[in-house]
């Protein structure tokens, strides 16, 4: 390949981008006040910036229409398990705990995992009363996500209507 065709190839690859879906997740620090005013189920996705399966999971979410359609019925929180932020969750403070230079994990990750070994990605579903009802270590594909949404719809949305 000549140099010019190589450059042209790189440029065309760069230009090839997907359309971008709207932001739909709620920041973890907003959760407390949101839940106070309008309790809803909470779906948390724990990930890190170096985990490729997490990136794949986020890509599936971006393209999942039903997920976006149903999102008004729950709060979706994306949380980086190695985030440096101070977090207030259920009125309690959680911090980043460094374990080396540019390495560490967040206390909230530990808490959400019930002190179990952390894995990425991890899905956690909480009821409007902050009770953990579902936990999944690993990726949920399009169909599984559908199944989870159906289950959520049946249990929470329909229950609300009663």
């Amino acid at each position, binding site marked *: 390949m000549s140099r010019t065709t190589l450059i042209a190839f*790189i440029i065309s*690859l*760069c230009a*090839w*981008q*997907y359309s*971008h879906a709207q932001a739909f997740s709620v920041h973890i620090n907003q959760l407390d006040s949101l839940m106070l005013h309008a309790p809803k189920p909470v779906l948390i996705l724990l990930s890190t*910036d*170096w*985990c*490729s*399966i997490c*990136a*794949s999971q986020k*890509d*599936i979410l*971006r*393209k999942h229409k039903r997920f976006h359609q149903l999102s008004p019925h729950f709060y979706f929180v994306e949380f980086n398990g190695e985030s440096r932020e101070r977090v207030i969750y259920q009125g309690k403070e959680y*911090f*980043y*705990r*460094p*374990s*080396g*230079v*540019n*390495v*560490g*994990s967040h206390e909230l*990750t*530990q808490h959400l*995992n019930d*002190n*179990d*070994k*952390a*894995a990425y990605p991890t899905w956690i*579903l909480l*009821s409007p*009363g902050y*009770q953990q*009802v*579902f936990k*999944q*270590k*690993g*990726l*949920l*594909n*399009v169909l*599984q996500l559908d*199944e*989870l949404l*159906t*289950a*959520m719809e*049946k*249990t*929470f949305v329909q*229950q609300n209507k009663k």
Partner: protein
Amino acid sequence: MTQKTISSDFKNEIEIILEKDDYKLEEVVVSGSLKQVSKLDSPIPVEVFTAKFFQTNPAPTIFESLQNINGIRPQINCSICNTGDIHINGLEGPYTMVMIDGMPIVSGLSTVYGLNGIPQALVERVEVVKGPASTLYGSEAVGGLINIITKTPTSAPRFNVESFGTSWQEYNLDVGGKFKLGKAQSLLGANYFKYGNPEDKNGDNFTDVTLQNRISIFNKWNIDRADNKLFSVAARYVYEDRWGGEMNWSRKFRGGDEVYGESIYTKRWELMGAYDLPTTENFTFTFSLNGHDQNSAYGNTFYIANQKIAYGQLTWRKEFGKHDLLMGAAYRYTYYDDNTVATTEASKTHLPGFFVQDEITIHPQHKLLLGARYDYNSIHGSILSPRINYKWNSEDRTQVLRIGVGNGYRVANIFTEDHAALTGARQVVFVDNLKPETSWNGNINYIKKFYMPGGSVFSVDASAFYTYFDNKIIPDYETNVNQIIYGNLEGHAVSKGVSLNIDWAHSSGLKAMIGSTLMDVYSVEEGIRQQQMLTEKVMGTWTIGYNLRRHKISFDYTGNLIGPMKLPTLGENDPRPDKSKAWSIQNIQVTKQFNNGWEIFGGVKNFLNWTPTKGGIEIISRSHDPFEKIDDPNLLPFDTSYVYGPNQGARGFLGLRYNLL
């Protein structure tokens, strides 16, 4: 998935549980790929390898495991004592910096020891930067950087043990665990490796593989502070006793001229840490202290060396607007002494340095990193090394492009780095005063990821690199077969190439990582172009795994393929070929996981039974007369530097692993 509503009396809560037919769900769970995404936000390309990757071909040290990473080749430099170094894109070991959790092990005498002794179970991932890493570590990181990230107190097992043995009677034992003491959390690990069964399969009366006894202990502390700042200290101790030589060698012949043997006793300790100052500003102090004590006898030549390094670095990080500024000052002190004639008195070098770098987020998709470093070396004087990196990512983050250009330098110390200087009967000769090597490097890296709706990930990672060296220090084996002449290269050297990695994590449980690097490493002196010795032009690596989730059985097939290399022969009369043939080392493994934390694994390493002696090549010249007692000018000198791959044939292995979470 089915869902159940449990109306419990007290809270009327709902629980979504998984029932029997949920195996479908289990099947598609991809718990982690072998190679993780390179850190997306970093303008410098970082490749991340998980602990799972290293388990696909279990090895007693991370050094050996690196053979399955594209662009990296652990190189054995001595056919008798089997000491080695790490080649990254054709650049030799001393160019590589090793760190533990970002705390540097400033190593000098041997980078390889930095990769020993951390039990695999305590390793969370290994981050690799190929090419000049950053302005942060100066001369240490010209070739690349290997950062071993240990598990956090959350993810580490409470206790773990892993043990395996091979049909060559090699035994490896890893023990690790964590505990808490007041406000401190600690990781503790130990490794013991023994190979005590001399083998001579090629019949040259020399041991094929060096006998080894090695113990290493690693301990890391994280101290919880009220302000949640970092305070981390780690220590490691390695003791190793290794020997190789004529089959009838025993310790009583050490240093004598009756029976040839190379025996090395190594004691090495390291202490390193990182501490955030309790100020509102972000100041971090990292330090590293180490001592390396080597007592070796190569035949009747003793090499007894002692090196101590103290290193400290204070950095200040400040974020304002689009800028993430990092400034720092570093100081390195090296004490070195040995018993050779070249070192009449201990050398003490001081290397203070300053650096500044600014990571500018021009736009969420564009990042620019500007850096410069100034060092003052007590021997070489002032050295300035600037660099610039740029990163672009697509809006959906499936594409990343990185471009970097920079300058690096290296202060060389022949005795601590080039083992060839010490073995054999060759005389070491220096030309003039050696100047520090300087290099200019450029690299381009492009990553594209494809996500499938089923959860599979396919990614392509392509890079091109170019490094231009000035004053390169090159050992000359050819001008005089009885000498190794070291000098600054008059002219220049170039290392350039392209590499491609393909990564595939399929939701069925199939994972594949295939990579290849094409490179050209050569020097030009007085218009004459020469290929670098012991450097291949093409290499490939692969790791292919399949996981039968339902039965908790996984299969791993790993291997590498190394193209022909130019080899150091002793002139026209040397019967050994001056070029190697392409060679490949391939391994298979089966692992069965049990629910109670136990795992059993076994397989065959190097099942093609490749060794450099294949085809009847005698890799050691004059092996029948290592002390050169026969007075015949037609005989070639005794030479052990002709080696380019591990001289160990096929072997089966079987091991057990236990994790208490």
